[in-house]
């Protein structure tokens, strides 16, 4: 076995990206994500890759998209205020189908808020932050090791589906240091973009069976046009009604068609549970602790940990909720993913959100106490 190591969430995120083949980072420093940039600034030059500190977050995502258009795997990292500024270009990446990963290490509050305190309050923003209808994938790691694995996965999903993927890490995980073990047989699998093989028979935004068009890269053998305007399959602007609808719908279907490949959840004593906790990120750890303690007390608690937040694991949540007496959703926000859970639950009276917005992680005690009240 490989020697276990003490590693930090942000560190593992950067190293995961490098392992996934990322060779371009552009970003603008912001607490609590800065370590990610710092690691890239140190490691990328060694690998011949590019680290750029841009003038702001808008430029950062723009540069990442530009780099990705040349075929490079590219990433940026930020926190709330920067993520807000990236929204317009996130929409560009969605509509122009440019693979890229945006790490958002979530901190508390709107505006400057509380830069050093954790929150999970950008969950809805990750889905809805940009204007217009679009598709996006968002993942949330619950451990330092998972920060590595999910960054790899984020890069892979971005490449496979030609979408912006948001890694929603909360500050607790980003700054957490813990024991990480890489097994000697553990391999980092890299997914590559579907490449255009023959420009005669394929188009850069074509409606393929799997919904994902082949990628034409800048500086490759075929020239093409990329625009943020609604475009037809060739990539040029269109104002044909069917063409418009086809593009916007495909941007959705290319994700919803592949839920089984994209959506990941983890079950922890779910099957026989009476009370189900649904959680993600660091709050899922509190939930795990609560489940362990509840079980010790003989209470049948279980946890459905959401790894993929968007597309929302609708099927998994409704299946897991079947026959449960209560569903507890602890979050470090005023109740965001709980809204989605409410949408999916057959009976909203079963839903018990727990919300903390004071910069502290929800505690196992709080979860147990809610559990105690209802069960």
């Amino acid at each position, binding site marked *: 076995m490989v020697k*276990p*190591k*003490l590693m930090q969430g942000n560190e593992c995120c950067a190293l995961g990206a490098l392992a996934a083949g990322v060779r371009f980072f552009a970003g603008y420093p912001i607490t609590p994500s800065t370590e990610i940039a710092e690691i890239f600034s140190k490691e990328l030059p060694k690998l011949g890759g590019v680290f750029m500190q841009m003038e702001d977050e808008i430029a950062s995502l723009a540069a990442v998209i530009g780099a990705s258009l040349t075929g490079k795997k590219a990433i940026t990292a930020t926190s709330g205020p920067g993520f807000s500024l990236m929204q317009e270009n996130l929409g560009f990446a969605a509509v122009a189908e440019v693979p890229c990963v945006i790490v958002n290490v979530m901190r508390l509050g709107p505006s400057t808020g509380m*830069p*050093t305190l954790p929150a999970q309050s950008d969950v809805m923003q990750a889905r809805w932050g940009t204007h217009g209808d679009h598709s996006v994938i968002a993942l949330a790691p619950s451990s330092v090791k998972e920060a590595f694995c999910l960054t790899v996965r984020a890069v892979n999903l971005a490449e496979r589906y030609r979408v912006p993927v948001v890694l929603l890490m909360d500050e*607790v995980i980003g*700054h*957490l*240091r*813990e*024991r990480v073990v890489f097994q000697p047989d553990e391999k980092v699998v890299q997914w590559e973009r579907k490449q255009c093989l023959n420009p005669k028979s394929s188009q850069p935004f074509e409606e393929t069976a799997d919904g994902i068009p082949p990628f034409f890269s800048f500086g490759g053998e075929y020239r093409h046009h990329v625009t943020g305007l609604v475009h037809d399959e060739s990539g040029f602007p269109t104002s044909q009604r069917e063409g418009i609808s086809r593009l916007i719908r495909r941007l959705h279907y290319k994700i919803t068609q592949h839920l089984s490949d994209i959506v990941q959840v983890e079950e922890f004593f779910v099957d026989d549970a009476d009370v189900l906790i649904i959680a993600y990120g*660091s709050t899922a*750890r*509190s939930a*795990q*602790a609560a489940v*362990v303690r509840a079980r010790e007390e003989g209470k049948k608690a279980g946890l459905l940990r959401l790894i993929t937040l968007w597309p929302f694991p609708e099927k998994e949540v409704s299946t897991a909720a079947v026959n449960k007496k209560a569903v507890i959703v602890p979050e470090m926000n005023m109740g965001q993913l709980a809204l989605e859970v409410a949408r999916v639950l057959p009976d909203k009276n079963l839903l018990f959100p727990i919300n903390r917005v004071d910069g*502290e*992680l929800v*505690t*196992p*005690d709080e979860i147990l106490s809610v559990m105690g009240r209802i069960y």
Partner: protein
Amino acid sequence: MSKLWKVRLSGKGGQGLITASIVLADAAIRFGKNAVQTQSYGPESRGGACRGEVIISDQNIYYPKISHPNLLVCMSDTAVKTHAGFLAGDGILIIDETLVTQTRPIKSQFYKVPITGLCREKLGQDIYANMVVLGAIIRITEVVPENVVLETFQDYFSLEMLETNLQAFTIGLKAGEKAIKRFGEFSA
């Protein structure tokens, strides 16, 4: 199954307590334990309230935060005021006698160590106080063997810095020793 340690090092920004907590967590992992390390600090880059926390266990550590430490080190008056009340019933409290004015025993296991004073006196500078703290902790709790900590040092300090940090650590070990001896004085 050995003891579950919940260690909180509290004081001010600039005292190096976060580094100390990282080295402790790393040493624990080298020693085959499970460990998580967290931290919290204010917007001030120096002098604001600051803490480093480590949980050391043989089990999985899910919830990574500490509400009731069973080992608390306080390196400022504010730290005592903020954290002492949360110490677990059987918890150990170590205070920096040099910086904390409240030096009357407030918990059953109460150790006074003149951490910063010793550091200044022997090394001429405050900035190694964090390794003095670490030495004291190791001696008082024996959570990780000395040699594992020393091994860990190699990864955290450049060659120039290693020497003095080792010295500081040794000062801490001795001071911990002494504090244990003085412990009788305070036991309630």
